[in-house]
C-alpha cells in the first residue's frame, strides 16, 4: 500500500510542470555551485601549496646571518584548503589566509577573502551548502504543502479514508513519494559531487575523508527527512492549502534566513567580542611586563648556575643571550596563550549558542555540522592557528638553542644553511572525523530530536486527519 501511495504522490509531483521547472532550476544551481566550488578549490589549494613551498625555499636560501635575524625574517604559514570546502566554504571567506611566524609575536591571520569581494557577497555565496540549506528546503515546502490539503479540497481524501487506508500508511507513502521526487535532484548532484571529490584526491580514492563525506550525506538526508515530515504534518493539520503554504513559508523564512542572523546576534549579545584596540592594549600591557620577564630570567639563571656550578654568566659554557631570548619567548607564549585562548574560547562560547539555537531552528544544527564536516568551521581554523603557532615556537626554540650553544662572547656569530635545515618543514594534518563530531554533539542530538519530533507530529496530525 505504501508503495502505491508513494507512486501516486511521485507521479503527481513529477507530472506537474511547476515541479519540473523548479527541479530543473535546483539541479542546475547545484551543479553550477559544485563546478564553481570544485574550480575554486583546485585553484586556491594550488596557490596555497605553491606559496607554502616557496616560503620554505626562501627560508633555506637565507644568507649567513645571526639566528635571531633569521627568527625575525621568519616564515609564513598559509591555511590549506580542505577538500570539502568545494561544497561548504563555511567561515573560510571570513578568516585570514596567511600568518607571519616571526620572533616574539603571535601574529593574526591576515587577508580575509571576503574583504576582496563586493557587498553582494553578504547575501550568501552560491555554494553547495547554500543550495542544500536554503533552496532545497523551499523546494520541499512547495512539494509538501498541499499533499493533504489539496486532497481534502478536491474531496479525494474522503474516498481514500473510506478505503480503510491507515493514516500512518498514508503519511509514510506520501513521505516516500516526496522523497523520491527530491531524489531525482539530489542523487545526480551527490554522485557528481563525490566523483569531483575523488577526482581531486591524489590517490583517486576517498581515503581519509570518506568518513566526512558519508557523515555529511547522512546529516543532509536526516535534515530533508525532517523537512518532509514537517511539511506533511502542516499540510495534514491545516484547513486549506493557502494556510498550509503560508505557515510553511513562514517556517522556511524563519529557519533558513532569519535564524542564522538572529542566533549570531544573540550569541554576540550574550558573549560580546572585544574591539581590536581593547584586545591589543591588554595584550601589549601583559607582554611588556618587564618584571615577569626579569623574574623568569632570574630563576633560570639561578638554575643554570647551580647546574654548572658557576657564579656568573660569563663562566657558563653556553651563551646566556640565547637563554635570555628563549625566556622572553616563553613569557610571551604564556601571554599569547592567555589572550588568544580567551578570545578563541569566547568565539567557541558564541558558537555553542549558535548550536543550542538549533533547538529553535534545525537549519542551525545542520549548518554547524556541515561546516564542521567540510573542515571550514572555527574549531578547525583554531586547530590550524594552534599548529602554526606551535611551529613558530619550535622555530624559536631551535634558533635560540643554537645561539646558546654557539654564540661566543665578543664575537659576531653567523649561522648558515645547515641551521636553517634543522628547522623541520611545516606539516599539518586536519583533525579526524571523530574529533569534528565530538565538537558538534549538541547539533547531532538537536538534529535527531527534530527528526524524531517531526515524525511524531506527522503521525499525530495524520491520525487526527479531518476528511473535510
Amino acid at each position, binding site marked *: 500500500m505504501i508503495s502505491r501511495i508513494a507512486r501516486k504522490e511521485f507521479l503527481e509531483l513529477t507530472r506537474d510542470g511547476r515541479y519540473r521547472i523548479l527541479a530543473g532550476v535546483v539541479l542546475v544551481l547545484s551543479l553550477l555551485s559544485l563546478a564553481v566550488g570544485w574550480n575554486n578549490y583546485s*585553484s586556491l589549494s594550488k596557490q596555497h601549496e605553491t606559496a607554502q613551498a616557496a616560503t620554505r625555499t626562501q627560508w633555506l636560501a637565507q644568507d649567513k646571518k645571526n639566528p635571531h635575524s633569521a627568527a625575525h625574517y621568519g616564515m609564513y604559514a598559509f591555511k590549506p584548503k580542505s577538500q570539502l570546502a568545494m561544497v561548504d566554504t563555511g567561515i573560510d571567506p571570513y578568516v585570514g589566509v596567511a600568518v607571519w611566524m616571526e620572533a616574539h609575536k603571535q601574529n593574526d591571520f591576515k587577508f580575509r577573502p571576503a574583504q*576582496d569581494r563586493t*557587498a553582494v557577497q553578504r547575501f550568501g555565496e*552560491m555554494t553547495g551548502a547554500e543550495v542544500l540549506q536554503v*533552496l532545497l528546503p523551499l523546494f520541499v515546502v512547495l512539494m509538501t504543502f498541499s499533499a493533504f490539503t489539496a486532497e481534502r479540497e478536491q474531496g479525494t481524501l474522503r474516498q481514500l479514508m473510506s478505503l480503510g487506508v491507515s493514516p500512518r500508511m498514508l503519511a509514510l507513502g506520501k513521505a516516500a513519494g516526496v522523497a523520491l521526487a527530491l531524489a531525482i535532484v539530489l542523487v545526480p548532484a551527490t554522485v557528481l559531487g563525490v566523483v569531483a571529490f575523488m577526482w581531486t584526491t591524489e590517490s583517486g580514492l576517498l581515503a581519509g575523508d570518506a568518513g566526512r563525506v558519508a557523515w555529511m550525506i547522512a546529516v543532509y538526508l536526516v535534515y530533508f527527512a525532517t523537512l518532509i515530515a514537517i511539511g506533511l504534518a502542516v499540510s495534514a493539520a491545516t484547513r486549506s492549502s493557502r494556510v498550509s*503554504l503560508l505557515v510553511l513559508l513562514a517556517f522556511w523564512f524563519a529557519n533558513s534566513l532569519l535564524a542564522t542572523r538572529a542566533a549570531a546576534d544573540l550569541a554576540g549579545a550574550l558573549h560580546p567580542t572585544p574591539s581590536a584596540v581593547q584586545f591589543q592594549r591588554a595584550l601589549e600591557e601583559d607582554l611588556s611586563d618587564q618584571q615577569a620577564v626579569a623574574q623568569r630570567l632570574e630563576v633560570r639563571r639561578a638554575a643554570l648556575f647551580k647546574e654548572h656550578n658557576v657564579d656568573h654568566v660569563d663562566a657558563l659554557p653556553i651563551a646566556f643571550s640565547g637563554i635570555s631570548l628563549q625566556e622572553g619567548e616563553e613569557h610571551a607564549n604564556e601571554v599569547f596563550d592567555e589572550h588568544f585562548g580567551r578570545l578563541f574560547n569566547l568565539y567557541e562560547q558564541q558558537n555553542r549558542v549558535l548550536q543550542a539555537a538549533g533547538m529553535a531552528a534545525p537549519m542551525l544544527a545542520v549548518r554547524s555540522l556541515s561546516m564542521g564536516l567540510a573542515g571550514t568551521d572555527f574549531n578547525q581554523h583554531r586547530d590550524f592557528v594552534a599548529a602554526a603557532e606551535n611551529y613558530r615556537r619550535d622555530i624559536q626554540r631551535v634558533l635560540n638553542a643554537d645561539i646558546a650553544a654557539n654564540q661566543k662572547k665578543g664575537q659576531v656569530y653567523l649561522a648558515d644553511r645547515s641551521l636553517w635545515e634543522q628547522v623541520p618543514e611545516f606539516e599539518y594534518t586536519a583533525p579526524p572525523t571523530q574529533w569534528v563530531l565530538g565538537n558538534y554533539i549538541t547539533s547531532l542530538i538537536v538534529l535527531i530530536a527534530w527528526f524524531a519530533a517531526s515524525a511524531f507530529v506527522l503521525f499525530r496530525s495524520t491520525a487526527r486527519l479531518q476528511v473535510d
Partner: protein
Amino acid sequence: MFSRILRHEWRLLSGDATLWLVTAVCAAAIGYGVWNGARWVRFQQQAIADASAEQAKRYDALQTQITALRQPGASVSPFADPRNPSSLGGRLGPKYATLPPAPLAALAIGQSDLLPYYFKVSTDARENIVSTTEIENPNRLLAGRFDLAFVIIFFLPLLILALTYNMVSAEQEQGTLALVLSQPVGTGTLVRGKVAVRATVLVGVLVVLAGAALLITGVNLTAAGAVPRLLMWIVAVTAYAAFWFGLAVCVSSLGQSSTANATILATTWLALVVVAPSLFNLIATSFYPVPSRVEMVQAVREASDEANKEGSKLLARYYEDHPELATGDAAQAMTDFNVVRVAVNDDVENRVRPVVQRYERQIAAQQQTLDRLRFFSPAILMQSALNDVAGSGVDRHRHFISQLDAFHAQWRAHFVPLIFAKARVTSLDTLPSFTFVEESTAVLWGRVGTGVMALLLPSLALAWFGFRRLRRYPVAG
C-alpha cells in the same frame, strides 16, 4: 468612488487580524533591527574613543620622555628614542586614522563589520597598515547581522506580498468581486484603492516605527547630514516597496487562484532576493577571480629580500631621485640603517605596487560587473542604497581609504626629510593628524538616486502592465 473604496478597504483591512499581526511583527523586527544597529554604532564609537585615548596616553608619555631627555646626561637606546624621527614615525608615534560612523549608521550595518574603520598609520609599508582588521567571530561575519536593512530587503517584500497576493483573487473566490463590479467601478480603480490603502499603511507604519526606534535608541537626528540621509532612506524604501506592490498587481492581474498567486510571488521573491544576488556574485567572482592573497604575501617577501640585498645601491638611486634629501655627509648616510631602510621600503613598495594593483583591478572589475547586474535584482539595488544612506557601504569606505593613503603619504613626507637630515624631534605638536572628510550629500544623492530610479522604472512598468490586464480580469471563476 475612489475615496469610498479607500474607506471600505481601510475598514476591511483594519478589521482583519492580518494587518495587526503584520504591524506587530513589523514593530518587533524594526525595533530589534534598529537597536542592533545602534548597539553596533556605539561599539564602533567606543573602539574609536579607546583608540584616541590610547594615542593620547602614548603621546603624553613620549612628550614626557622628550622633556626628560633634555636633561644633561640623560640617555636612551636609539630605537626607543622618541626624538629619533625614524623611531617616532615608525614604531613609537603612529597615529590613528579613523572612520567615524555616519549619522544614521544604525540603519544598516552593511560592510562596516567587515571593513576596518581604524588604522594605525606609521611610516611602515602601506600594505602592512591596511591589512589590519577589527576582530570578530568569523561565524558571526558569515551569518551577517539582523539589522533594519535585513528587515527591509528580505522581510518587507514578504509583508507586502502577504497583504496583496489575494487582494483580487480572494474577492473572486468568495464571489464578492462580481458584486463589487456591478457598481459603477472598474477593476483598475478597485485595485488602485486596495494598493493605495495597503501601501500607505505599510510604508507609513515602517517610517513611523523606524523613526521612533531611531529616537528611542538615542540616534541624534539633528547631527549634520542626518536629515537628508533620513529623506534618502524614506525615498529608497518607498521605491523598493513600490516595486513589490507593482509586482503583486501584475501577478494578481493574471487571474490565477490565491494559492497560485502566493506560489508565483514567493518564487519570484526567492529568485530576486535570494538566488539572484548569490548567482550574480558567483558570476562576478568567476569571471574576475581575485587570486588568494598568499600570492601577494609572497611577492612582498621576494621584493623585500631583493631590496634588502641591494641595500646601499638602492640608497644611491634614491638620492638620484630625491637630490633635495642629499646632505653633505652622504657617504656616512650610506651606512645609516634608518636611511637605508627608507630607500628599501620605497623600493619594496614600487616593486609590489603592480601586484597590489592586480588585486584592486580584479575587485574593481567584480564591482563593475555587479553594478550592471544589480539592475536585475531589486535586493542588490536596495542593499547598496541602504548602505549608502547609512554610510556603511564600500563607497564611503573607499573614500576613507583614499584619505588614509593621503595621510600616510603626508606622514612619510613629514618624517623622511627628518630621517635624512638626522634631525631630532623636539615637539610632537607639529606632527600631522588625520580628520575624516565626509562625502558630499550631492554625491550621495547621485548614487542613491540612481538606485531609486532603477527601482521605480520597473515598478511603473509592472503596474502599467498589471492595470492594463486587470481590465480583462475574469469576474467569475
